[in-house]
């Protein structure tokens, strides 16, 4: 059965990377944002260090990498599940793989791999663009966190994908939810810069914890007013809850598919 699940993973990855230009455009957009937006914000903030030894560009780069992983896992998981459900392919996959759980495992693995590839693909040119960050950071911890965060985001993506079952909802998930998750977190700016009224959203946003831990593991800075261990616990709760709900919802989605 493993070979058959891996065939599904292979199919999903081939589908995602069949449109290489789409993938490359996203990475290029991020680099442009870091280059233009990063420099503009740094000019506003000034050259002062946001945290000991860390300037704004270095701070932003880490946020952007984990934002890219989130965006790509969410969009690819949602689009894949949406198009497979619409076309009836989920039914064909069920007949082929015999058990819905293998479809879920296959989609989960492929989505996590997409996240890892996205993260590493953005990381590679940034090593050249912002070398100072990588001199300062714990590189192996950063790579490991990219892999783990891809798994974390995949579990959330699966949940969001089960909501995106109509074109309108798909649009909602990809644009509105994506924007809220990105801007109501510490991806682009420290939490202190976010108006107090939005802070509750920041603290229930899983992106905040993933990015905080990324900066903690790579640069040793903790932006939250509590021990990083609590961030790990919160993320684990998120993973558990989203996996339980998304698996149930995907089962229902598969059951609803007709040919």
């Amino acid at each position, binding site marked *: 059965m493993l070979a058959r699940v891996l065939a599904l993973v*292979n199919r999903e990855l*081939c589908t995602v990377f069949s449109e290489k230009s789409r993938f490359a455009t996203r990475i290029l957009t991020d680099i442009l944002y870091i280059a233009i937006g990063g420099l503009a914000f740094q000019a506003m903030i000034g050259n002062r260090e946001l945290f000991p030894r860390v300037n704004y560009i270095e701070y932003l780069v880490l946020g952007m990498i984990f934002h890219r992983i989130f965006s790509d896992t969410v969009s690819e998981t949602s689009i894949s599940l949406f198009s497979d459900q619409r076309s009836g392919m989920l039914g064909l996959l069920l007949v082929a793989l015999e058990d819905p759980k293998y479809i879920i495992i296959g989609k989960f693995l492929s989505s996590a791999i997409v996240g890892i590839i996205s993260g590493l693909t953005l990381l590679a040119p940034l090593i050249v663009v912002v070398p100072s960050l990588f001199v300062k950071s714990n590189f192996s911890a950063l790579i490991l966190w990219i892999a783990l965060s891809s798994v974390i985001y995949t579990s959330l993506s699966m949940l969001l994908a089960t909501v995106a079952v109509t074109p309108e909802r798909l649009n909602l998930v990809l644009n509105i939810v994506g924007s809220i998750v990105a801007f109501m977190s510490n991806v682009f700016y420290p939490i202190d810069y976010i108006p107090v009224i939005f802070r509750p959203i920041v603290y229930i946003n899983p992106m905040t914890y993933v990015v905080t831990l990324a900066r903690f593991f790579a640069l040793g800075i903790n932006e939250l007013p509590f021990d990083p261990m609590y961030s790990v616990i919160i993320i684990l709760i998120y993973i558990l809850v989203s996996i339980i709900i998304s698996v149930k919802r995907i089962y229902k989605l598969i059951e609803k598919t007709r*040919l």
Partner: protein
Amino acid sequence: MKVAIRIRNLVKKYPRVVALKGINIEVPEGNIYGLLGPNGAGKTTTVNILATLLKPSSGTVQIYGFDVTAQPKDVRRLIDIVPQRLCLDLRLTGFKNLYFHGRLKGVPPRLLLKRIDELAEALEMKRHLKRKVREYSGGMIRKVQIMQALVTQPKVLLLDEPTLALDPVSRRIVWDLLKRLVLEKKTTIFMATHNTVEAEILCDKVGLLNHGLLIKEGSPRTLREQLGVGVLEIRTKEEYLNKVVSIVPDYLKGKVVQIRSTLYVFLDKEDYFETLSAKIRDYCLEIVYRKITLEDVFIKEVRRKIAG
């Protein structure tokens, strides 16, 4: 002979409509069964239930003794399906769609490549398989969908309008491939189709489904013979329709079907043709006598509006 498919008192109710009202079908191993019926008759619902994608409201459906509701995984191991709707990944090439489907079904890579090659050769798709499916014509997409099910060589093959959008030559090739699969591998085929020629050529047994009821069942030949020896196709003007119907003798009244201002009179004996056509000639635009086909059986059974 083993029974591959057994359907007993199958009922499927949707919130607003009863799609199947207690149908019974039995298909022996190595046979081709054709489910004919108009749009909305319940054919695709039946195929979806056989494919374990839809649960029956009541009744039992078994494939090689495995119940589709209680043992769906065992059933899925035995079947493959060519759905009516487009079920291919448009972003991938035809080859990749076939390859992944075969691998998902557990066909070993080397055997899979051999089968893809053979099928591509037979269906004249070899040079097209490297292109992305979104560049294909409707017929090519259909061919890949059929190839997809044929590469896995299942014990039971479910087909929903399999040759829709295919040209006559490609259709013949597909029929030949299906026949060979049955003869060489003892595959059982269950197909839902509108195409009466396809059913006549391919099927050992045909069931006519209308409004969720199986109204007629038998071999294509038996069904034709039950209807008579020939059919008189009478094209008349609207104003003469009642006149022509009144001339038809009483013993033939139950064998007349009207579609717009054309009458189909099913005859038990060929000599009725001469007698009847002599009487109605003056009121008709055209009178044609021909042998009964499965399409006539379909029209007679489904089109219940009987003239007169």
